């Protein structure tokens, strides 16, 4: 069951990710990205990360991607043109992509040759309660700092956007 679920959602994630990259219209890319995120949420669940899975759906798929779609609509962005390619990106990009993939995989495999197998329910410490406990004790200061960060980001976004829209 674990294997089937993993393979299914991993496949969806990869296909959607490829779609993000190859689609020329941003709105298609955005919708594909939502697919990636949704399937990742399932994978998180499989890994025992309930809270993160929920957050993934609500924050990423829900909030962030809506923002993206909203901006795409606002700017009325169309399919991208084909001109003006970067030569460097062309020359180095494709070999770079494969080199990166191979190397990352190699490193990962080498670092974890005998890691345990993942079974659903093998780790149950990822509930909202557990995460919350840790978040509000040991990671209290970083947590508070992120709230400040978000506040600054909101202010920054407002300032940036307002300036041009007035």
């Amino acid at each position, binding site marked *: 069951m674990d294997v089937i679920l993993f393979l299914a959602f991993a496949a969806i994630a990869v296909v959607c990710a490829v779609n993000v990259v190859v689609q020329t219209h941003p709105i298609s890319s955005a919708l594909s990205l939502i697919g990636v995120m949704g399937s990742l949420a399932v994978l998180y669940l499989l890994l025992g990360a309930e809270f993160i899975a929920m957050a993934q759906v609500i924050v990423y798929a829900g909030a962030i991607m809506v923002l993206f779609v909203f901006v795409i609509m606002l700017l009325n962005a169309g399919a991208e043109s084909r001109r003006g390619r*970067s030569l*460097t*990106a062309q020359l*180095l990009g494709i070999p*770079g992509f494969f080199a*990166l993939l191979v190397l*990352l995989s190699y*490193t990962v495999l*080498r670092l974890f040759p005998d890691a345990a197998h993942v079974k659903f329910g093998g780790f149950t410490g990822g509930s909202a309660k557990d995460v919350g406990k840790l978040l509000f004790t040991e990671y209290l200061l970083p947590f508070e700092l992120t709230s400040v960060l978000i506040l600054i980001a909101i202010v920054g976004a407002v300032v940036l956007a307002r300036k041009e829209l007035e």
Partner: protein
Amino acid sequence: MQHLWLIPVLPLLGFLLNGLFGRRLAKGAVTAIALGSVLLSFAWVVKTLVGLGALETAYIERYFTWFQSGDLRVGADLSVDRLTAVMLLVVTGVGSLIHIYAVGYMTHEGGYYRFFAYLNLFMFFMLVLVLGANFLLLFVGWEGVGLCSYLLIGFYFLKKSATDAGKKAFIVNRIGDFGFSLAMLLIVITFGSLDFGAVFPAAASKPESTLTLIGLLLLLGACGKSAQAPLYVWLPDAMEGPTPVSALIHAATMVTAGVYMVARSSAIYLHAHAAQEMVAYIGLGTAVFAATIGLAQNDIKKVFAYSTVSQLGYMFLGLGAGAFSAGIFHLVTHAFFKALLFLGAGSVIHALEGEQDLRHMGGLRTRIPVTFWTLACAWVAIAGIPPFAGFHSKDAILLAAHHHAPWMYWVGVLTAAMTAFYVSRAMFLAFFGEPRGHHHPHESPPVMTAPLAVLALLSLAGGFLDVPKFLEPLFPLSEGAHDFALVAISVVAGLAGIGLAALFYVVKPGLADAVANALGGLYTLVYNKYFVDELYDAAVVRPVETGSREALWKGVDAGLIDGAANGVASIARATGGLLRLIQSGNIRSYATWVVFGSILVLVAIGLVGGGAR
């Protein structure tokens, strides 16, 4: 405790009071402070010396450690022995007289308080110089009097020639100090201390080559301070300062510091044969050389300045010949008569409202009689006429020279004749014959003539102070017999000099010019002081200055080093130009490079095997 520190500190207080508040004080108060501090200091010297009695050994007072590094400790220690006692009396005694004189001389000058502040500061440093119980304290005084000399020569700082002369004095002295400093360094290396009490007793056990080097380096220092060849050039120029300064610093006290220092270091010189020989050679050479220049000078102060150089040469001759006490003896008598000569000259200049050229004087004998008669005392003293002061001391030196090497005696006698000639020439030109100036001379006030009278007495009778006898515990008297023939020859030489001068300038006034013309080139050479200044200027000053500007600053600094730096910069710029191709501003090519870089990192991790635990 005799509180030796009071001796130098009193003038220092005078300096501080006058220097800080002098501008706001009344002239009378400035005078009182300046004179009072020096007179008190003199009184304290007398009291101390009486209190110390026979002074068979050095009396030392230690105050505080000036600085210490490792085993080397330099203390603020003062000491008095018989040599110091003589120097103290000369410095404070003659110094006091000159201070009194200066009150009259400087009355009408601007910067009255400044003058006396400097003069007091000078007294402070001079007293530290003679009282110091180690070489470094001696050096403090040594540099300090150099500073005061600089300030006082450049006292009329609106005159460029005056400030030039001050600067020249300081810098030439610095060349001497270069030698002195190196000598001190070598002394510390050799003896491990700078204290006189530790160095001199140990001198006998040290290798002669080291002692010779120390002796020669000290001699270089002495040459600078005491205006010996080849570093004498600053002293004639120093006459730009006010006349009391010339008398105090550049005749009676400061310039004799070199003599004092060599005498103080006699223990080293006695074991450094070559160095001592060198002292004699330099002294004799300077004595003759300066005397010849003195023959043809027309500025009354310049004549006396060259005379000072020459007389200092005499003292060095005495020291070099091993007669340290004779050298000090001459130092004392010279302080009397040369101070008198300068103060008298100052009185003449004062009377003539600033005229210094002998050719514009004449016939002053009746106009300013006090000055004339006191100067006459100095005249007979310096000419070596028995039984006056100069005769005794010069005689002692010449006898020692004869004992050392007879030829030195003969050169010394020749110099004595020249000395008698140029002083007589100055006297005849100034006081005899017809008045050549258009001035209306007036006699100086009593505050100036009184010190002249005291000094005149000392010049006449000073020779009977048996300084060599007093110094015998320090410098054993040489056993040379008192040869009357030698004495007679030198006296005759002096008389001949006076006679010749009388012939030239009184009996047949035209003769001098005729002789000068006959000598032609030789006269021009002497008249222009052998062009030594010009030679130094062309050989040292110009090349150094031009070389520094053109070669070092503009060449090496701007050209070579900055050029190299700019070269590096242009290489960097060229590299930057290459890299700039990458900096396209295109986000995606940047990203490509980031990827490229992370791939490299991964490869590196793979190669190094990081993380494989």
